[in-house]
């Protein structure tokens, strides 16, 4: 027997015992750790009567300006900002709730800080703040400032009569609500009709209350009747009262297969007033019954690619000719300003832009396509996507690639760029920016 063999014989068992003990200890610790890993602490699920949360975000943005565009001239006619603009945005959104018995108080505020070529700007708005009373699971009554978010469209909601319009470039941003009194009454059934719910809403517009909803001095009434019928969501909606002309709508949504959903919306707006301008600066007003609609679908492939496709017919929108007139008027006003220094016509153009030509997608026919790929190349929580919005009337469009990463708990990182394409006097061709790059870091707490 060699010395090595002796060592093996004499020391081996001790080593083996030691190794076994060590491994047992390690595995014991590991299994303990595993057991600890897969448990739920009582503190994690304990219900508290209050909740405070929200998010903070930083959002620097770089704009590439189109110095020949009408909307560039309208905004920057009396200043030279160069070829690019930087903007630094920060936001703090806070929400809190307090619950006692059948009552719950909820408040959400939004504070925005912006540092741009116009200087620093800080603004805080109460997005929502309402008292909710729930006497039973069938009935909820809400009083206060609230967003209702009606409609089924992803990028547009023509039938959302009591909501502020979404930004189709960022449709998942939350919005400021209106002061309302509303109720939800729900009834469930067996059979083809599974659910009926009725939501009446009072929208007062007096003095400073909801003064941006429409004409003040009116108590408006809206309602939504929801049905889940033959596995299809159907809503019937109306609004009347005087601040806005009366309007009626409906929406529908249904899953066709496990990976294919279709939806649609329709809105009929009575006696809609349209204000427009010709290339000479003459103002016109016309009234007509406007019909708007949207059809869309959401499709998921086997490779986890999601397609959202929507066609939007904006019955309240401008025709390509009306839009060309508006852009031509700005160009003429600018050409007048350059030699004379008189900006009266440009100011007139600015007045008719706000809330009219300046609203998102102000023309008539749009196509929206968003393609997003969940976790490509096995990168968990990473979602790249590409969004395109096409103005079907003048063939101008925007393309926005986006990269989203949410792999760190409560932290969401998004890099988004937008590029626009279009001829002169077209919807996208006359935007003030040719491109935009934005980074957003949002931390939830």
């Amino acid at each position, binding site marked *: 027997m060699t010395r090595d063999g002796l060592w093996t014989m004499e020391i081996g068992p001790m080593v083996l015992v030691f190794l076994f003990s060590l491994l047992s200890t390690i595995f014991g610790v590991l299994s303990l750790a595993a057991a600890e890993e897969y448990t739920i602490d009582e503190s994690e699920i304990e219900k508290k009567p209050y909740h405070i949360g929200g998010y903070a975000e930083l959002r620097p943005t770089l704009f590439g300006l189109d110095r020949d565009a009408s909307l560039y001239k309208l905004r920057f006619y009396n200043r030279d900002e160069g070829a690019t603009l930087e903007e630094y945005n920060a936001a703090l959104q806070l929400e809190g709730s307090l619950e006692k018995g059948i009552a719950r108080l909820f408040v959400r505020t939004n504070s925005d800080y912006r540092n741009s070529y116009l200087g620093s700007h800080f603004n805080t708005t109460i997005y929502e703040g309402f008292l909710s009373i729930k006497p039973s699971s*069938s009935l909820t009554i809400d009083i206060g400032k609230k967003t209702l978010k009606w409609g089924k469209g992803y990028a547009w909601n023509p039938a959302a009569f009591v909501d502020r319009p979404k930004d189709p470039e960022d449709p998942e941003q939350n919005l400021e609500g209106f002061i309302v009194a509303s109720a939800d009454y729900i009834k469930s059934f067996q059979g083809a009709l599974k659910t009926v719910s009725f939501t009446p809403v009072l929208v007062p517009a007096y003095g400073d209350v909801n003064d941006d909803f429409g004409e003040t001095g009116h108590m408006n009434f809206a309602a939504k009747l929801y049905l889940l019928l033959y596995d299809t969501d159907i809503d019937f909606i109306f609004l009347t009262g005087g601040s806005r002309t009366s309007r009626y709508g409906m929406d529908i949504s249904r899953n066709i297969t496990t990976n294919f959903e279709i939806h649609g919306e329709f809105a009929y707006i009575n006696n809609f007033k349209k204000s427009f301008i010709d290339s000479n600066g003459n103002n016109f007003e016309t009234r007509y019954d406007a019909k708007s609609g949207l059809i869309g679908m959401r499709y998921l492939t086997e490779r986890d690619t999601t397609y959202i496709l929507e066609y939007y017919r904006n019955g309240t929108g401008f025709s390509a000719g009306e839009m060309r007139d508006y852009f031509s008027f700005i160009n003429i006003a600018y050409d007048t300003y350059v030699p004379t220094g008189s900006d009266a016509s440009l100011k007139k153009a600015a007045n008719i832009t706000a809330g009219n030509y300046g609203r998102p997608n102000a023309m008539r026919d749009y196509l929206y396509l968003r393609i997003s790929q969940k976790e490509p190349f096995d990168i968990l929580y990473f979602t790249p996507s590409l969004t395109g919005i096409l103005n079907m009337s003048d063939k101008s469009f925007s393309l926005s690639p986006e990269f989203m990463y949410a792999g760190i*708990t409560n932290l969401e990182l998004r890099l988004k760029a937008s590029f626009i394409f279009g001829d002169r006097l077209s919807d996208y061709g006359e935007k003030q920016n040719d491109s935009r790059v934005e980074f957003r870091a949002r931390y939830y707490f």
Partner: protein
Amino acid sequence: MTKAFIAMVALLFAIPSFAVDGTALLRQVDRNLNPESYESYRKLINVEPDGRKKEYTLFTIKKGVDKVASVFLAPASEKGRSTLRLGDNMWFYIPNVGKPIRITSLQSVVGGVFNNADILQLDYAAEYNVEKVEESGNEYLLYLKAKTKTVAYDRLKLWADRTKKLPTKIECLTEANMLIKTIYFKDVKDFGGGIARPSVIETDSPLYKGYKSVIVFAKLKSKNFKDEVFTLTFMPNIESLR
């Protein structure tokens, strides 16, 4: 006498041997997993190959064979988000976005190996027919076929403990028998009220090599709810049922 004896023996052999009623067995497995109507807390853990984890805590309610709803309690980025399933209909509510949107069973609201059908799991007997049952050792092996095309996985192979009649492993397969994921049921725990079931469910998938997803159950108890809470309109209020 001899003829009578032979006839009796022949008759004895003619009686079919005892066969397991697959449908009844699957229903029993369902009931042993959950009461028909219940509330529970779940933690979903996505484990990455490097050991990094992402966790979600949910409060879940279920009623009957086709109604289930969940609300996220944590992390903060997901808090208040809720999901609802009524049969084949599924919706997802994000407080910031507002209105509930229809989702499909193959999508995933949390990422990772879980899809929506896993998170909003109905009774297996509600979605699958039993094609065949095999018995081996202390286990049953049930071959399940989806009742409709709208079910997330076309076929399941479900191994169940013969004594406890609880699942131990499920393989989720496509129509072409391609393995999508394997679900392992572990750590049987007594939740009280006569409910003793696996408290940990682990999932891996050949489509996500090296990744693992885990569901941990807590405070599972039988509870009845009104039908009205399983509606689109009630989705923002699911947390009030805790």
